[in-house]
């Protein structure tokens, strides 16, 4: 065990810096700090070893299969990391004049265009720094649009019960009231339920397609028509965009606004929770409301291109203080360039891998089948899924008492990250699996075999899993009850 606060070197002996160029500065008496923070006193060797040790207690995609549904945990091409560490990126100032940022703005411009094209939108801003912030930003644009056209009364946002939690949370932050509509038995969007709630107080409907169940909503265009007829806007949660590039796009489906999770579709290293990037694209009628600034390209007489900042005339202002997660934009640019028009192949393989994994799990050999206590069932019945799928572990629970969570924990023992657990909430004992396109057939086969094997194991072993992880099952209730949120410094 390595404890940062046990590093206990002599005062001032750690990491050295050059001397201040002057000590002729003053701090007002009242504001002079009396005691320094109790940070560790360590030398570089200790710190390097500490964080190396910590890293060995974490699991990333680089460590193994990471089928965390809805998160699109794909491989991160390493050159992208090299690029963001290059001079001219990490050492740029956001407020430098445009003449200092032409290379970066060229990349921004290309990304705006590419993202708009892929989603069938007219205008894209790169400012939002996460999917949730993209949702919030787009809803703010819709809100201002409605205010501008005299429909400030539209104060309700419709979301299916299968929606990701950020959808209602983002809309609520704008001040909207949330109307949740139930899904059909088969997990699909219920058009009747939608019809029942739309009206002239409908600001928008927020929905993702393929849905969080991994299935394509065949009646999406009809839904859009219903909402549009009522005067509402259609918002596309782009978290599942990885499934459809080149096959369809939100514009065709009738959406007015969309966010992209660059950290899903365009492979950002998720870094233990972020950073991400959540650009949004909108149709022309919403373009003037986008956060400022966008990048525009101007060509002079000699054909030289100059990039400039542009503030949309009715802009909602800013949602992040600078230009969003520029570094994420540059990584995503490098990723996109690696695929180019083969982004379509990317989606094909994401869908191929998901269907193949589903097939392998749902069709065990007779021998394996006979050994299994109970088989999971489809979260939503369907012939093909898109990039992910859900399994309900209810039959397993009924037969053995082994919950979805138990299976998830047991998978950790096999060296896997667990699938997404208990989301979407409408599937009981839900496991949600998304292999992504960067897993090999062998890796998928192996996972399927191991998954099925768990269903044959002694339920006691599964219920008490994990056994071979850095720590055993963690007591989350204890944490919430005791709230030890920092080192007490008293030992």
């Amino acid at each position: 065990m390595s404890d940062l606060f046990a590093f206990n070197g002599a005062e001032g002996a750690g990491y050295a810096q050059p001397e201040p160029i002057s000590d002729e500065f003053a701090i007002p008496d009242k504001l002079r700090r009396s005691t320094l923070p109790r940070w560790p006193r360590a030398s570089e060797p200790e710190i390097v070893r500490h964080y190396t040790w910590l890293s060995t207690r974490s699991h990333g995609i680089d460590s193994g299969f990471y089928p965390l549904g809805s998160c699109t945990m794909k491989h991160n091409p390493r050159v992208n990391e090299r690029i963001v560490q290059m001079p001219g990126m990490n050492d740029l100032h956001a407020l430098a004049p445009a003449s200092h940022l032409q290379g970066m703005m060229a990349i921004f411009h290309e990304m705006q265009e590419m993202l708009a094209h892929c989603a069938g939108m007219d205008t894209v801003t790169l400012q939002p720094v996460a999917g949730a912030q993209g949702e919030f930003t787009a809803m703010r644009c819709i809100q201002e649009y409605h205010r501008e056209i005299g429909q400030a009364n539209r104060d309700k946002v419709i979301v299916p019960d299968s929606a990701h939690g950020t959808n209602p949370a983002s809309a609520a932050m704008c001040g909207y009231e949330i109307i949740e509509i139930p899904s059909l038995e088969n997990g699909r969007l219920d058009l009747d339920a939608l019809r029942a709630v739309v009206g002239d107080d409908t600001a928008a409907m927020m929905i993702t397609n393929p849905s969080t169940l991994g299935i394509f909503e065949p009646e999406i265009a009809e839904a859009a028509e219903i909402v549009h007829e009522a005067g509402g806007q259609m918002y596309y949660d782009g978290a599942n965009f990885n499934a459809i590039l080149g096959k369809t796009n939100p514009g065709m489906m009738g959406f007015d606004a969309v966010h992209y999770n660059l950290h899903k579709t365009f492979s950002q290293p998720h870094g233990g929770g972020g950073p991400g990037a959540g650009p949004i694209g909108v149709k022309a009628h919403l373009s003037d409301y986008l956060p400022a600034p966008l990048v525009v390209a101007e060509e002079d007489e000699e054909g030289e291109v100059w990039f400039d900042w542009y503030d949309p005339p009715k802009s909602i202002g800013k949602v992040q203080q600078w230009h969003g997660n520029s570094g994420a934009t540059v990584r995503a640019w490098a990723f996109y360039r690696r695929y180019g028009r083969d982004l379509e192949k990317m989606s094909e393989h994401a869908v191929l891998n998901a269907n193949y994994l589903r097939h392998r799990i749902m069709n065990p050999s007779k021998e394996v089948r006979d050994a299994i206590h109970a088989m999971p069932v489809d979260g939503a019945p369907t012939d093909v899924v898109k990039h992910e799928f859900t399994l309900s572990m209810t039959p397993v629970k009924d037969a053995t008492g082994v919950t979805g969570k138990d299976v998830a924990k047991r998978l950790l023992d096999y060296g896997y990250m667990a699938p997404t657990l208990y989301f979407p909430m409408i599937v009981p004992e839900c496991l949600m699996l998304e292999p992504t396109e960067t897993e090999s057939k062998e890796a998928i086969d192996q996972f399927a075999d191991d998954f099925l094997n768990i269903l044959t194991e002694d339920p006691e072993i599964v219920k008490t899993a994990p056994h071979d992880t850095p720590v055993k099952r963690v007591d989350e209730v204890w944490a919430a009850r005791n709230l030890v949120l920092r080192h007490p410094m008293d030992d």
Partner: protein
Amino acid sequence: MVDQLPNLGREAEMLAAMGMDSIDDLFTDIPEHVRRVDPLDLPSPQTEEEILREARMLLGTNVSVDSRPSFLGAGLYSNYVPTMVAMLATRGEFLTAYTPYQPEVSQGILQAMWEFQTMVSELVGLPVSNVSMYDASTAAAEALTCAVRVHDRKAAQKSTVYVSELVPPHRMSVIENYTQGAEIAIKILPHDEDGMLDLTAAAAAEGACAVYVEQPNALGLLDPGLCELKSMIGENTALVVGVQPVSLGLVSPPGDYGADIVVGEGQPFGIGPTAGGPIYGLFACSQAYIRQMPGRIVGLSRDSDGERAFTLTLSTREQHIRRHRATSNICSNETLIALMGAMHMALLGPEGLEKLAQRNAGACATTKAALLAIDGIEMVHPNGVHFNEFAIRLPRPSVDLLTFLDEECEITGGFDLSQWWPERENELLVCATDQIDAEDIEELAEGIRDWLEASK
């Protein structure tokens, strides 16, 4: 052809296993009328070599703050980040993990974030920190909505917050976007001639939900008056203070003078200005705000063997559980950059932090002295004590000087304050961090003298 797909060329085999013939069979569920017919109008895939070459070419046209003397700060600061930070943070186990939903295989990042919380807590003088916000502006904005949720029931001035007039407009814009949904009224707190908060006016904030001020403020001024605020506004109004965290090596932690919530740009710890992102926002608070705070929090716990273990906690505040009643919509955050910040802080240690603050203060003081010595240059706040940056008044618009310095001297001279406040056309915000040396300062002074000369 793209080279990132392990199953390229093996599609037939996999499809056959499923009883399918072609990739199209996987997309039969997309109805005709929403099916794309034309392929994506995008260029051919490129190789790693080609992308790297093009990136080098494009980024090479940028003018970075490291490539020349740069006095541009205004909220993003250049500083030296130890090599260790990038080398360790890019280890795959950190880099390619997602939110630690499974604590048993995420102890590393969880412990690192718990340590981050501890170091931030120590730095700002408050007991609780989360594991990062998007940036300082969303941190400030969500601090205000958080304070309203906590205090509104008892507040005399319902849904009202007071914000310093010196908050930079970009940050102010974020605050407005984030608070308008809850119909929060924002009242502005004026400053005196010396750039100090007008404490008489601030008294009006009593009974509101929150007051938001910055230390140092946007003009680099340290304001001792802020120490009086908490006693003026009382227990039921949250004092929210925005900080430049490096300054806290010399300056009192706001917790010591009554801050209930401290926010700020964590960026100087762990990462360069990086064109403004990804960076990370700090968010720390006192006990009373815990259940209303936004963002992820790591707590200590134990495993089924009773061993020490860490886990995300208080998640019932969050969107994935509480949905539209969540304390915030934040889901993906900036953990990786916060991790880099934690590594940087851990390496600095207490005296390293103090030294870093002294280096920044020393560079600022030296720059100030050098510019003051120039005939024709005035301090905007001659009585002020500055950290990192200060405003000077020029005989002509600062944009002229900036262009001159840029084009004639290859110096990035600072920030034209009229971009924030049009009336400050002749004012320039000059920032000096630890990365500025005596030679840089001499070059700047020289350049300004040349400009003054040239425009005579």
